[in-house]
């Protein structure tokens, strides 16, 4: 049962990380355009070129064995931060692109011009003026991020490159139960069903939220399947 705590923690933390990174990158790229946009967009394209699961697996394997050291910060291979960072990072392009598209169209609106005319700096415009207009998109993406992150965590842990012993999650339980699937299928099926139910409730919640906040109901499915933004916003 404690495994569920890990699964939920990773789902939320990773989605939060994705949201944060994607929002900042999307705002920067969409507002500054020019060079900043080119650099950020190309970098996202490269990450986009990897199949999500393969990229996460590669990172998971590389970091699970050696751990991670950034400056003074050291994370051991079994730290829960590692799956959170990995899952948070791989979904960034799928969220940053639509946000960038939205910022591109928002920045042409009069209220941005008005703020600039009053002498507001770029930071002020981005976070004071543009961000509040993005909230509904961000919240919708966040709930979907939670659902997708939990699914990816489960898959990584199932494959042995997500949550590492001594920690457990529903995914690792499914993975270890799979070894005994012929004799005791419930060991694997029950945690699997828990994942299904949790993700399902997050998705249903997200659906409701989307209907309430966002009239353009297509957004959700686009991010899930990784569809590029519609032509026109990109130009």
């Amino acid at each position, binding site marked *: 049962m404690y495994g569920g705590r890990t699964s939920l923690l990773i789902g939320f933390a990773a989605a939060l990380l994705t949201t944060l990174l994607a929002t900042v990158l999307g705002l920067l790229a969409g507002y500054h355009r020019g060079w900043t946009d080119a650099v950020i967009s190309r970098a996202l394209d490269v990450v986009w070129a990897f199949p999500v699961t393969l990229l996460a*697996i*590669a990172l998971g394997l590389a970091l699970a064995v050696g751990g991670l050291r950034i400056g003074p910060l050291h994370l051991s291979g079994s730290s829960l931060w590692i799956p959170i960072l990995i899952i948070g990072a791989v979904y960034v392009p799928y969220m940053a692109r639509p946000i960038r598209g939205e910022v591109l169209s928002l920045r042409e609106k009069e209220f941005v011009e008005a703020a600039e005319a009053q002498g507001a700096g770029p930071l002020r415009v981005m976070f004071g003026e543009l961000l509040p207009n993005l909230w509904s998109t961000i919240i919708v993406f966040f709930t979907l991020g939670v659902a997708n992150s939990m699914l990816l965590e489960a898959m990584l842990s199932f494959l042995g490159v997500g949550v590492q012993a001594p920690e457990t999650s529903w995914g690792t339980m499914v993975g270890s139960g799979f070894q005994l699937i012929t004799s005791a299928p419930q060991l694997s099926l029950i945690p699997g069903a828990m994942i299904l139910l949790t993700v399902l409730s997050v998705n249903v919640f997200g659906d409701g939220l989307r209907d309430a906040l966002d009239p353009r109901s*297509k957004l959700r499915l686009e991010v899930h399947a990784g569809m590029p933004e519609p032509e026109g916003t990109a130009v």
Partner: protein
Amino acid sequence: MGRFVVKRLGGMVAVLFAVSILTFLIFNVIPSSDPAQRMAGKNATPRLVASISEEWGFDESLPQQYLTMMKKIFSGEVISYEGREDVDERILEGVGPTFSLCIGAAVLWMFFGVLFGYLSATRAGGLLDRVLTIVAVAGISMPVFLIGEILLVYLTYKTGILPSGGYVELAENPLEWAEHLILPWVTLAIVYVGIYSRVLRSNMLDAMGEDYVRTARAKGLSERRVMSRHVMRNSLVPIVTLFGLDFGALLGGAIVVEAIFSLNGIGEYAYISLINTDLPPIMAIVLFGAFFVVLFNALVDIAYAYLDPRVKLGESAR
């Protein structure tokens, strides 16, 4: 048109180059431990570590290390440390099962995705629509391994209706080939049927509100003709894009499905290598997978420009 294709393929090469650099960084630079130590696996002898370090040139500069890695992968010299196999050869062997799995599953999910999407869009708000929506959301929320395990337990172990896995060459015995692949096909397709039917449904609902649909109706066209010629034709375009992207990503390895049904394709090879923490195969498979995503991305773009000249204009105006 020709210029666009050339440009797009040039972009593809550039992205692939960046992808290979990122892969190199992931495996050799970002983690804090000695890469040779990691590559040698969990119970490595100091001698093995030293020989790996020598072989991959880990004591040289980073660009030099990168060149060594790429040279090895392209010349087919990558050897796994668990079992000492030739990685490139093993990947090529896995192409048959993996392609069979992906193509079969793709046929299934396109058919049912379009069927369900069409049904729920034309009956939006009705009972059938609601049932299909619930089914689709459940499919999207389903962890792949859970579907696989349920099918495996109930259709194979408990009842013995279908074989539990393995792969039979198509040329050897087409009937057994299909029999062994039914469960993996269904497993893989369920998730995508959910996504595709929902995307198609919302696209169709959007299209039905467009002026040209009203015009078509006003002209007195039959409902059937309006649907097939006007609504469907426009709603299917994004589905085709999605399909190209998803299919490319799939070919790189439907790892979980192959692992559960021991299909002996690229995905299962990745799974086995993961269990053994065998890095060289994973490195090669990641590059292989990224190659297909990039390839299909480019193909989709080119197909688009062919079908819709406006895309090409948008590209050059950028």
